[in-house]
């Protein structure tokens, strides 16, 4: 797949000296869905704002389909659609005019068919003549998406699209993103819901403190970083790990009620058989045995923690 968005050594320092982005480089391929994960204040919104032209980069370059966002901003920006994090809409205008306005603003001739199609897809067609202020929060978010799609962009930025949105709408959003992918639209979304990245993204990038810690294929990332844990729940609490089991990487938790064993699913030997045999040998009574797969969330938390440790 060709690269549609190329970010090179991007830096952004605000006037007060705060460095929101430190040397960010990232290539995004055409047609993919990439999720940028990061805690609040990591620089996700600054990254999007800089690419979209809302803030000016301090150093570095960004190009969209080969068009530089500064030198060739008209061509670059006309390929981009942005759904901002906060709901920002003209309250007194109706839905269809607001969407038409966006299309015009991006230099596209009026095409009622295109606007109708977008509104229908977002279940907004019946509300087209309603004033924005009369819409529910979820509907307003849909209008924001409709506005971002009005000029048929090739790259769509969704800045925390499902923050404060109910479950149903979240599922709808994911479906919309999926449909857009079928049309060949590249989607970059920021989120702090790991579940969201896990559900829809092809690739995951982790940002913390203005730096990209990693960008990787979601499945590969989970396989590489994914460890499994085996919890052995006991009928009687232990005060310490029995001597016979000290060779294993065990932790005693839950006030001595649970022994946890971490292992790599991809290792040739997981060591489970031997551990369980020796466990039986100690005469401990087991109540239950549970295994858990670490989620993207665990991976994310451990990455950000590592980064913070290094920083301090």
């Amino acid at each position: 797949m060709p690269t549609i968005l190329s970010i090179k050594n991007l830096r952004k320092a605000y006037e007060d000296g705060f460095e929101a982005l430190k040397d960010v480089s990232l290539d995004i391929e055409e047609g993919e869905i990439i999720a940028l994960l990061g805690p609040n204040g990591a620089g996700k919104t600054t990254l999007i704002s800089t690419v979209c032209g809302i803030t000016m980069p301090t150093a570095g370059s960004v190009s969209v389909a080969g068009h530089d966002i500064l030198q060739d901003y008209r061509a670059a920006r006309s390929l981009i659609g942005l759904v901002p994090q906060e709901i920002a809409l003209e309250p007194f205008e109706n839905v269809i005019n607001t969407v038409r306005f966006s299309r015009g603003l991006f230099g596209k001739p009026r095409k009622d068919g295109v606007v109708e199609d977008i509104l229908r897809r977002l279940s907004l067609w019946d509300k087209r003549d309603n004033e924005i202020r009369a819409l529910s929060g979820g509907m307003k978010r849909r209008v924001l998406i409709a506005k971002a799609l009005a000029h048929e962009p090739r790259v769509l930025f969704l800045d925390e699209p499902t923050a404060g949105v109910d479950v149903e709408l979240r599922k709808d959003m994911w479906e919309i993103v999926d449909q857009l992918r079928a049309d060949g639209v590249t989607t970059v979304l920021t989120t702090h819901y790991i579940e969201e990245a896990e559900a829809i993204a092809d690739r995951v990038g982790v940002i913390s403190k203005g730096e990209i810690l990693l960008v990787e294929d979601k499945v590969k990332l989970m396989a590489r970083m994914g460890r499994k844990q085996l919890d052995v729940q006991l009928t009687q609490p232990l005060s310490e790990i029995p001597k016979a089991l000290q060779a294993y990487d065990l932790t005693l938790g839950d006030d001595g009620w649970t022994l946890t064993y971490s292992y790599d699913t991809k290792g040739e030997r997981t060591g489970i058989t031997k551990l369980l045999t020796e466990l039986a040998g100690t005469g401990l009574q087991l109540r239950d045995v549970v295994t858990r797969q670490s989620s993207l969330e665990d991976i994310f938390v451990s990455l950000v923690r590592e980064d913070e440790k290094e920083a301090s």
Partner: protein
Amino acid sequence: MNWSAVRAIYVFEMARFFRTLAQSFISPVLSSSLYFVVFGAAIGSRIDEVEGVGYGAFIVPGLIMLTVMTQSISNASFGIYFPKFIGTIYELLSAPISFLEIVMGYVGAAATKSMFIGIIILITAFFFVDLQIEYPLAMLAFLVLTCVSFALFGFIIGIWAGSFEQLQLIPLLIVTPLVFLGGSFYSISMLPPVWQTISMFNPVVYLISGFRWAFFGVADVPIAVSLLAIGAFTGLCLAAVGWIFKTGWRIRQ
């Protein structure tokens, strides 16, 4: 040049005007009618003629200017401040448009609105006083220039303002006094000599005088000076807008 964007902004802004038709249309008509009744009929009956023109007719150009100037400023400043306030400015900043197109859209719409109101007042005036316009083309040219330059000025205020309070500050503290003291309701020659001299420092005097000349062929200051004054004001506003455009002042961090 992204003309489609200019049109989009213009149409969107004009839609706001028509949504609030009562407010944008009836209120200037009503207030100017009140001026005609109070100044024209009540007070004007005691004032014979000013520079050979009946007082009722004499105040028409000043009244139009008064409304047009304040309307241009408030329309344009609100037009660009409101997107900043509610956050929709993000779309203007991320669109493939330059600052020039933003200015043309917003200032164009604001100037059109006040132009429209100015003409409405003129029509209203015909119902109250006996009026003829000596140089209609010059009158129109003055009206357009005033609408555009004050809309530009309002646009700058809107970009600058960080709160609704600030948005009102300059119009209230500077523009309104200047306009009232600029000879809207009197001729500068009616003032004592000292105040005549002081008035010469008020730029609005030149605009009202020029506009009045287009109606009656009489003026406080030579017409060339009036033209120069409005040209200079427009140039100043354009330069300020150009500087904002270059630096992204108060718009783009």
